[in-house]
């Protein structure tokens, strides 16, 4: 089994290195094919491991004693338990599809090879993140995905900055930096958490750490839990660190699908699930996580209601769904969170890749107000996106129905009716904005015609490549029971109380009703075509939502601008005169000491001999003093 672990882990790395070899060369199809194939191999290995874990239990591999300095010893190993196996399978499956898809999507990009190198490197980092058996390995993978994400968001770094009115994300490189900085802030928290763990427990192995949790001081556990969650908030774009995710849509669409929907952003959820013994021990923090998740769910959904940008809508919906996952995890229903994570990965990736098809057809136009009636030209994409939206909206019998419904049940079960109510209402919003988007894009009048677009369906093999996701988006929910049995071998089981069981039918009906209600409302308003209502669009709530609650602008005002102003003050007064002078001073001292010690090296042999003899004299003369001491 060990070999499969290594295959699953290193196949993406091999692909990345292979593609990197060609990075400066013009497009070579071979890079796409090879990386996709290696990813597929990794996927197969993951499935084999999943099966193995299912029947035989967890696999543990120690690669080597990684760091053993002094008393510190951190073995570098991988642990494939139920959670990891699920994550690995989801990650490699979505990645494989995205790789194949990218072959078509990036067809005309001159940095084709570089793209695949980054993409595979990302998958490798993600695998390290999920497979590691200790926090340090997790952190390395965590940083790795951060770097890859930065590279990929900024993939089209040559695009110039524009104002926020034209493009809310300003530019790919701006968005990349924003994502990186936000994540950096959060990672700092995470690093503090890891340090605290090491400080208190003396080990970073999950097994040791979680075994030590019951015997630890509660206050310390809370501190560690909070710091780790700060890390999770950054990666999973939770409020208030959420702004980067929507802006990250500047990256190529396959990237959005892979990183900013299916995998990387779920790392935070994964961390909370992974650290479930810790979070179970600190219910107050867990409750906060659930509340925050609930808030993000509705907060993001509300912004998606009015947005006109195809990808941003999906991005907000991702945010919203991440909120659901955190809500579930925070309520202690870890397996439900994982279940929603997997289901969401499938239909959200499908949705994004469908959006990519639309973008392709529309020459990178993203404004859904300029689309409409695309279903004629893009029948398959319409089908895929429709399916994915149904799944997202939570319509029976698609995947989203089962996962979201279970989260709602869990909220009900915990008697946190407030959370339940908000999540329930959000389900309606979700259905509405999903179908608003679908209908505005595919149904109604063909608004793109006057604008001179000539949409066409994408290549056949790309559509075929999407089919696994479509199938899973439909059927994944049917495996809820086996899935639960499988992962609860490792995760704590979550049982619904009698009371909930009793009401489950009512709950289901109520949830489905609001989802259907959302869809019907969208259908009524948008199926026939776009009827813009000036009054609504000018209304304050609408503008607030459209401007993302003015949070990015707020950040700019509260943080960036004063920071810039402060920086200016610091720069002019403090920095230039004090810090700069100090730093320059140190630099020039070093430089000068380099320059002056350079004088030793006169080039004249005689001086060298003198120096050498002088050194010898000092050494021997030293003896006299040393001997006097004895």
């Amino acid at each position, binding site marked *: 089994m060990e070999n499969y672990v290594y295959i699953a882990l290193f196949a993406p790395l091999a692909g990345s290195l292979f593609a990197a070899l060609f990075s400066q060369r013009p497009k070579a199809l071979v890079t796409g094919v090879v990386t996709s194939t290696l990813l597929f191999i990794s996927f197969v290995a993951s499935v084999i491991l999943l099966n193995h874990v299912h029947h035989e239990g967890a696999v543990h591999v120690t690669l080597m004693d990684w760091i053993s300095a002094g008393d510190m010893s951190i073995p570098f190993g991988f642990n494939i338990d139920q959670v990891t196996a699920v994550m690995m399978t989801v990650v490699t499956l979505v990645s494989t599809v995205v790789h194949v898809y990218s072959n078509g999507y990036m067809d005309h990009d001159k940095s084709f090879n570089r793209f695949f190198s980054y993409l595979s490197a990302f998958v490798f980092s993600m695998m390290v993140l999920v497979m590691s058996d200790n926090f340090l390995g997790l952190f390395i993978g965590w940083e790795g995905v951060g770097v890859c994400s930065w590279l990929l968001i900024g993939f089209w770094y040559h695009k110039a900055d524009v104002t926020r009115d034209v493009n809310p994300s300003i530019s790919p490189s701006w968005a990349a930096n924003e994502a990186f900085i936000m994540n950096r802030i959060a990672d700092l928290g995470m690093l503090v958490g890891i340090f605290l763990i090491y400080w208190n427990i003396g080990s970073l192995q999950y097994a040791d750490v979680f075994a030590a949790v019951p015997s630890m001081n509660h206050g310390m556990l809370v501190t560690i839990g909070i710091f780790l969650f700060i890390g999770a908030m950054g990666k999973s774009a939770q409020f208030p660190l959420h702004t980067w995710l929507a802006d990250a849509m500047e990256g190529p669409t396959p990237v959005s699908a892979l990183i900013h929907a299916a995998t990387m952003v779920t790392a935070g959820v994964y961390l909370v699930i992974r650290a479930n013994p810790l979070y179970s021990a600190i219910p107050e923090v867990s409750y906060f996580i659930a509340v925050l998740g609930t808030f993000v769910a509705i907060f993001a959904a509300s912004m998606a209601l009015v947005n006109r940008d195809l990808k941003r809508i999906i991005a907000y919906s991702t945010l919203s769904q991440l909120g659901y996952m955190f809500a579930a995890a925070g309520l202690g229903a870890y397996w439900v969170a994982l279940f929603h994570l997997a289901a969401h990965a499938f239909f959200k990736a499908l949705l994004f890749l469908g959006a990519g098809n639309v973008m392709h057809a529309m020459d990178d136009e993203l404004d859904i107000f300029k689309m409409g009636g695309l279903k004629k030209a893009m029948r398959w994409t319409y089908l895929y996106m429709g399916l994915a939206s149904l799944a997202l909206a939570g319509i029976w019998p698609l995947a989203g129905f089962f996962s979201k419904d279970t989260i709602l049940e869990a909220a009900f079960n915990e008697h946190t009716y407030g959370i339940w109510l908000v999540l329930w209402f959000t389900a309606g919003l979700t259905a509405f904005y999903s179908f608003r988007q679908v209908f505005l894009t595919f149904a109604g009048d063909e608004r793109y015609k006057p604008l001179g677009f000539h949409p066409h369906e994408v290549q056949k093999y790309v559509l075929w490549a999407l089919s696994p996701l479509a199938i899973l988006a439909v059927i994944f929910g049917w495996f809820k029971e086996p899935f639960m049995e499988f992962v609860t071998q490792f995760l704590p089981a979550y049982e619904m109380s009698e009371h909930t069981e009793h009401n489950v039918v009512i709950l289901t009906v109520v949830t489905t009703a609001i989802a259907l209600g959302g869809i019907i409302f969208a259908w009524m308003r948008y199926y026939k075509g776009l009827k813009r209502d000036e009054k609504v669009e000018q209304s304050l709530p609408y503008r607030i939502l459209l401007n993302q609650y003015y949070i990015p602008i707020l950040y700019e005002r509260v943080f960036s601008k004063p920071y810039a102003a402060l920086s200016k003050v610091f720069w002019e007064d403090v920095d230039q005169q004090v810090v700069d002078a100090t730093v320059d001073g140190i630099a020039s001292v070093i430089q000068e000491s380099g320059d002056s010690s350079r004088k030793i090296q*006169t*080039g*004249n*042999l005689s001086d060298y001999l003198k120096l050498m003899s002088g050194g010898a004299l000092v050494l021997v003369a030293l003896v006299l003093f040393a001997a006097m001491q004895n």
Partner: protein
Amino acid sequence: MITLNHYLILSGLLFAIGLVGVVRRKNLLMLFFATEIMLNAANLAFAATSSYYHDLTGQMFAFFIIAVAASEVAVGLGLLILLYKKYGSINLDDFTIMKG
């Protein structure tokens, strides 16, 4: 009565003289003379110690030092001839391109 210390002190003085030569000479040939003096000083110390301890090891070392000195002369003079043929000088002040 001449003791081992007498010989060793003489050897130390000769070594110092050799060292003066090494740091003072600019002419490489004459600099090599000075290194010979240093090796000879060591030879003397070895021979004297050997004699006073009735132990032959010192003479062995001195013997090998002579062999090394002879070899060094061969290589050193080879280098000097090369330099002289190329640059017409064996003054080490003339070889200071590389510095800093």
